[in-house]
């Protein structure tokens, strides 16, 4: 059986095709103003990447904030459900999933089959999402990829007072004027966002096995801050931004059995 998962996130639409344990395609498109159009483009790209036609697909399932506007299917699963399902498929012993995207953060506590037991969400505020680091990296004129790595070079903990990304931007500009090294600023920024995410994780409980998914999982500075803050190792699956789409593809398969 071949199934597709479509994750209509706030910033990107991701499509994943799954056959048994093999991923046939992974594609993404910027969501922009019309996520349905972006989904169509990502879907077409996945078809050409896999060499399949739409008829080869047995079932499709959507997830993400824009799942209601998915042009292909009425089948859908919540972001929380997809995150838990996708993560436990890849790492069966994980019981706490942290999902941080551009515009939202989630903490999910799950059972052994990826069943959601508890979850907490932060959305509609950049302070608890990937946008926070993006905004600051832009203010410092450092590419996002480098900004995360910079943090690992710092050993100094400096506090950040501002909670809001807009106010934090002014604060880091002052820090720059005061000749604070960029690596220390980077660490302060990553510690700040990690502490907000961790407080959310504590509300659902931190288990022995914790995984981080979503695009922010590519940021080593954030992973480091998370591990230091929770005093536990954090597993980052391969292709962390596609875990939601994978969860949706798995759901499509299970529902059509």
């Amino acid at each position, binding site marked *: 059986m071949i199934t597709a998962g479509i994750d209509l996130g706030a910033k990107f639409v991701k499509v994943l095709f799954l056959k048994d344990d093999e991923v046939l395609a992974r594609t993404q498109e910027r969501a922009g103003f019309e996520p349905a159009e972006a989904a169509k483009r990502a879907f077409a790209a996945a078809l050409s990447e896999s060499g399949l036609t739409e008829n080869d697909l047995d079932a499709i399932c959507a997830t993400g904030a824009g799942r209601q506007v998915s042009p292909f299917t009425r089948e859908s699963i919540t972001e929380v459900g997809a995150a838990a399902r996708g993560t436990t498929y890849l790492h069966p012993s994980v019981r706490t999933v942290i999902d941080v995207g551009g515009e939202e953060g989630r903490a999910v506590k799950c059972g052994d089959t990826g069943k959601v037991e*508890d*979850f*907490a969400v*932060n*959305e*509609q*505020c*950049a*302070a*608890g999402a990937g946008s926070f680091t993006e905004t600051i990296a832009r203010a410092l004129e450092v590419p996002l990829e480098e900004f995360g790595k910079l943090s690992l070079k710092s050993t100094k903990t400096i506090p950040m*007072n501002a*909670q*809001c990304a807009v106010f934090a931007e002014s604060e880091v500009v002052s820090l720059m004027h005061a000749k604070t090294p960029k690596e220390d600023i980077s660490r302060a920024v990553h510690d700040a966002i990690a*502490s*907000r995410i961790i*407080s*959310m994780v*504590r*509300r*659902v*409980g931190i288990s022995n096995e914790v995984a981080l998914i979503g695009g922010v999982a590519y940021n080593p500075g954030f992973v480091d801050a998370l591990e230091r803050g929770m005093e536990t190792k954090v597993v980052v699956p391969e292709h962390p931004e596609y875990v939601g789409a994978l969860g949706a593809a798995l759901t499509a398969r299970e529902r059509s059995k």
Partner: protein
Amino acid sequence: MKANYGYMDGSGEYYITIDTDPCNDCADHPCVSACPVGMFEIIVDDYDDEVAAIKEENRKKVKYDCAPCKPVTDRPPLPCVKACPADAITHSW
């Protein structure tokens, strides 16, 4: 006076309200030691009343600082609210 400490952001409204009139009548202020994070302090306000307040450094992050007392499930009564003999403390979320 109703003193609201906290904030509102895109994700919601997070205020701890202290009713300073009944609070002023309380001598012991057990809220201070009841809070596991130590967010409460006793201040003399602008009208010379001795009342409890949320510390400046906690006001912009009550959502996060209060999180340990607000697990998603099995939520027990809040220690600060429970400790207050004057029923002067309420949370908006």
